[in-house]
């Protein structure tokens, strides 16, 4: 059952990267900001959770909550430093993207100076147990990761559909200009969006640290994977991101089964490029609904 094993791994990894992809997607479509600072938010939240685990308690809910809060704080930081000063300036999209990159450079160096280059590991959140389903051994962390990210994603979708703030964010997605005319504050919405998406990145960080370690530069790979999934699914679309995460996870599983691990990125990018050539705005992005700003 090697292929099943690889498939479950792909699903686990895709559910983590899917969180970041949805975060990138929501930020782009509601604020028009290409936020490449999630790598920093990711490491920041990881270190935040690590500090809490070291000093306060290793009880899993507290560590996970610390990750969420750390991510939200990192997101709000980016919002305050980059989005709010720049959102009404000329060349906002370019400058915003470069600004978030600068934040990620500064932030990673600050983390490096503060905590040193050694990787840190978080306590096990989901304990040690495993379930056998149809001959597959599913370990506790895999189930926990998938369940946590589905819960988080479900919460985000529910909150966006059901709450007043979510309505504001969706209005910003449809037409930011009209939204600001009917009294939706761009800056306050920016803070909600960045806090929410930062919390998603923070959760992804805590979940991924069950498999890997926390290091100042560990946010880069999740960021690039997340951005690729968001791009492939269509920026601004949650279901597109989910579909793309599944397709790319499947590609990864199939490639590493039949070709070998070093070709994973190549096939993934070929798939992404093929999808983008057929549909330049991603799987469920509509060409004429592209955000103009």
């Amino acid at each position, binding site marked *: 059952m090697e292929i099943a094993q690889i498939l479950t791994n792909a699903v686990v990894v895709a559910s983590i990267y899917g969180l970041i992809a949805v975060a990138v997607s929501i930020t782009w479509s509601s604020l028009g900001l290409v936020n490449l600072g999630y790598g920093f938010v990711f490491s920041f939240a990881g270190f935040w959770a690590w500090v809490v685990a070291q000093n306060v308690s290793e009880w899993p809910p507290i560590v996970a909550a610390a990750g969420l809060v750390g991510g939200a704080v990192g997101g709000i930081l980016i919002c305050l430093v*980059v989005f709010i000063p720049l959102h009404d300036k000329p060349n906002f999209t370019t400058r915003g*993207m470069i600004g978030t990159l600068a*934040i990620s*450079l*500064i932030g990673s160096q600050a983390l490096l100076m503060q905590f040193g280059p050694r990787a840190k590991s978080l306590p096990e959140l989901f304990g040690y147990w495993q379930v056998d389903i149809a001959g597959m051994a599913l370990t506790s962390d895999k189930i926990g990761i998938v369940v946590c990210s589905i819960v988080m994603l479900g919460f985000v979708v529910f909150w966006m559909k059901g709450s007043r703030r979510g309505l504001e964010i969706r209005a910003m997605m449809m037409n930011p200009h009209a939204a600001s005319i009917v009294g939706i504050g761009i800056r306050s919405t920016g803070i909600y969006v960045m806090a929410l998406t930062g919390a998603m990145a923070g959760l992804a960080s805590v979940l991924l640290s069950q498999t890997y370690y926390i290091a100042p530069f560990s946010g880069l790979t999740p960021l*690039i994977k997340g951005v690729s999934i968001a791009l492939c699914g269509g920026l601004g679309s949650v279901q597109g991101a989910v579909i793309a995460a599944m397709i790319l996870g499947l590609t990864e599983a199939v490639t590493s089964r039949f070709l070998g691990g070093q070709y994973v990125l190549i096939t993934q*990018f070929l798939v992404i490029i093929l999808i983008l050539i057929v549909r330049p705005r991603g799987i469920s992005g509509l060409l004429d609904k592209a955000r103009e700003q």
Partner: protein
Amino acid sequence: MTDTQPAKLRPITWHNPLEPWGQDQGNPELTSVASPDASDTWRANTKYKAKTYKVGRLKHYVIWRNNGQRLWDRWRWWPTRRNVLNIRGLYNRKTLKAEKKILDRRPIYWAICFALLVIGPAVFPASMYNTLLSAGTIFGIFAAINVCWTLILGTASIFTLASYAVVGVAAFVTTYLSIQWGLPWYVLPVGGAFIGLAVGIVIAIPALRLDGFYYALLTLGLNELCRVFFTTSKVFGSASGGLYGADSFIPDSWSPNAQSLLSYYSAFLLLVAVLFLFRFINGKQLGRVLRMAPEKREAFAEACGVDYRRARIIIFVVTSAALGFIGGFYATLYRGTAFSIFSFDTVLLGLAMVTIGGIGKAEGAILGTLVVTFLDKVLIDLGPTRLFLIGLIMLGVVLFTNNGYFGIKKQFNAWRDKKRGEWRSMRSEKGGEALPEEATERDNKDEVYFLRFDKMQRDYLKTLICPEIIEEHRQQPLGQHSATLERLLMYFRRAPMDDKYALQRNAETGRYKIIAFSGHRGVSPRVVEDREYDTIGDGYHAIFVRRVHDLMES
């Protein structure tokens, strides 16, 4: 408004002009109450109130001496007729001497900078000689890469983040070929150019369909793909941190110092060659075509017959070949390449270099490279702080400038124009005077001057009003008045017909009411107030008081 200092009051004596001919009624002369001088109002209104500074707004040019015979002589790039400097010859209007001024001094600055780079090794301090020389070599190569990159970002408006990946791929493949097949050093840059061309064509295919940030995100991924591929591949030396062993043009027999000098000057020559490429793409047909099609106005350019997509892709592919050339050169200069060329930090530093100076300008790319290379390679003692500093500079540049250091001038000028408009609107008085903006839109300029005069006159008449005048009018609404009151009444009588006050006599009661004319034929007057006056004199005075009130309100 009127002068701030209290106007000096002086009595006005009215002389009856009919007096020499003799008349049976009226006084030969009449003194009126003391009132201000009209010329004070005139002076206050015609004074230039904008604050002026000694240094003018005109661009400051250095004026060079010249003589009439050489006024039109120019240096030219042989064998073309293109001027080296954009010089204008002129005669001074006051002294009538022949003068010349250089309108565009950038070629001089470029020449100075090149000269500094050439004589650099001779003046480097001995304690840091080796550090500066190797930093200078890196500066030359990175500046060349960044000039190419800014050509893609700025001129072609394709937001790629994979430029360093193209350089790296070319460098790795040429190194590998040199090791395997023993290619000589002079083949490597050319081979690199072909590899760059091929890579450029491959990654240009998505650029045809994707625009803006979709492409940026894709190329970010491509960069990571190259990094993972080359780092994990056994062929390219995954264990040793890089691939080394390519043939080099630097002879091993030379002293280390001579080797460093040779690499420094070869990197400098590479930079000069890339600048020529920049000049020949950005300043010639392709660049000019694309200046017609900036972002978001592509549709207009297309309607004008500009094939902007073709131009962009040509620039992208040609520049990719140039980047490949630089990659091959890099391989032969350092005898190989490290994996760090693909790292995300390299892309970030490169982006910092390009943004600090300003995207789309060769001088911007070079200045940014100078700043970042200096911080990164010369101030090594600072440790991780130096990357932190670079990030801070990058963030500051992005937050406060629209387009880097070389965009500051444009941004400052726009800001100054905005402020100038604000100040002008703050100091222009809205006393019925036409604002400068309105004045240009009125066809009849007489109206503009009339409004200006009328405002001035009202300013003056306001100073005349005092209880004595009103009392004088109350006692005698018609007949001979003092000069001051007469001036007021003349102004009131000359008012335009619309909304001019009049008296209406009720035929039954014989009492008077104040009405106002509509000013339009066939539209009846409106009643101003319900109060009725017994005598016509009371009515006249009521109208007078009402007009005085209107005057003071205006």
